[in-house]
């Protein structure tokens, strides 16, 4: 028996019709857009510079977006099902943080949002995610370098979650109530991320010779990017306290490698964005 492909232009309608609801824009950008800040007062407090606040939220949002994408690349590839699910959940938390932060940036300073063709239904946070060039992304290099093995991912997540959690604990009292609320919520999520990464770091360091070798290789490879990460988040001594605690219990020395010089991005970001953005860019009106 042959299976006939549904024709979306069939005069009797398509089997997909009911799925679209009232949204005529197809699925590229979801059905029926919702503003993640619907009803939230996004007025920038008078003591803050709106452009500066937007740039800061963009940087925080881009870090979450890019690492979320890297983590989601593990989907169906992790060492076991539990960790596949864990990494997907962490990616989802970070994607949520990215969405809120990009929306907050756009509300604070609409000029950061790329211009799209008239009639494009793309919401601002998607416009920022899918229609900026690599050079306009403000993320640190730590989050963009390509995935290595699982140990590399564990080391990266430990460094990132430790630095970001410490910063978010501070940002929870930021003068912008929207950023403060996003940070306060993120603290709870990042606490789980840091614990997850810390436990795996310890397990791999104290596991087999091979797991320890891989962990040290991952950590040493990432360490040149740690200084930039710490600087971007204004990391204080509390970050070193946590990292030294993990290193000590794991029997791992803090790597002695020089920070990577330069700034901007590595080639890895362009490659990642090419894949992440290709569908949205091919269909900027969300229709095909």
């Amino acid at each position: 028996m042959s299976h006939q492909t549904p024709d979306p232009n069939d005069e009797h309608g398509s089997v997909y019709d009911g799925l679209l609801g009232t949204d005529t824009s197809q699925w590229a950008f979801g059905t029926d857009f919702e503003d993640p800040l619907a009803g939230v007062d996004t007025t920038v407090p008078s003591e803050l510079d709106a452009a500066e606040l937007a740039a800061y939220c963009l940087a925080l949002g881009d870090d979450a977006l890019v690492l979320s994408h890297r983590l989601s690349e593990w989907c169906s590839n992790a060492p076991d099902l539990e960790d596949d699910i864990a990494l997907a959940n962490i990616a989802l938390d970070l994607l949520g943080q990215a969405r809120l932060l990009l929306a907050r940036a756009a509300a604070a300073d609409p000029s950061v949002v790329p211009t799209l063709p008239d009639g494009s239904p793309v919401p601002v946070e998607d416009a920022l995610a899918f229609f900026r060039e690599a050079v306009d992304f403000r993320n640190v290099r730590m989050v963009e370098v390509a995935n290595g093995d699982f140990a590399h991912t564990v080391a990266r997540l430990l460094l990132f979650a430790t630095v970001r959690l410490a910063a978010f604990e501070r940002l929870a009292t930021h003068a912008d109530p929207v950023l403060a609320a996003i940070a306060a919520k993120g603290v709870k999520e990042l606490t789980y991320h840091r614990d997850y990464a810390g436990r795996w770091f310890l397990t791999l360091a104290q596991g087999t010779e091979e797991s320890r070798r891989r962990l040290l290789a991952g950590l040493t490879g990432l360490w040149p990017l740690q200084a930039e990460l710490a600087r971007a988040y204004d990391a204080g001594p509390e970050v070193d306290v946590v990292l030294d605690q993990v290193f000590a219990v794991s029997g791992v020395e803090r790597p002695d490698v020089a920070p990577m010089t330069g700034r901007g991005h590595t080639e890895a970001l362009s490659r990642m964005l090419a894949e992440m953005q290709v569908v949205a860019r091919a269909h900027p009106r969300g229709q095909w």
Partner: protein
Amino acid sequence: MSRAYAVAASVTDPEMPMLTLEDLGVLRDVREDGRRVTVTITPTYSGCPAMATMRDDLVHRLTEAGYAAQVEIALSPAWSSDWITERGRQALRDHGLSAPGAAPRPGGPIPLTLMPTARAVTCPRCDSARTELTSEYGATACKALYRCADCLEPFEHVKEI
């Protein structure tokens, strides 16, 4: 309790349909102005994909009840599992899920926990206290996976947050 509140409060969570939005603690406010109703909900996790469905279900049910409804988001204060009502906790247990304990409220820097999270989790099926953590992350962001050492059944535990 207003009629609009009663309608909104009866909408259920798409991922844990044994819980109403009220029992889950995400329903923060229902303002009624004639036929116009504004419902405020708060996300459980930043990336919770159920938010869009909750919003659509609220609008749908309130529209059926004759209201013009809109849904707004409250980000602060951040949702806590402590907001799940006693009725909600019972509904979780009745459906084979373990309800969260008290959420941590650290004063000062959040401590790192390198040992598995210590929880007094009892099996929702046989009430045994001999349970073990399988994974801190489950099928949705809000749940961890456990296994009962007595009846051997796996079950989900709604995480403290």
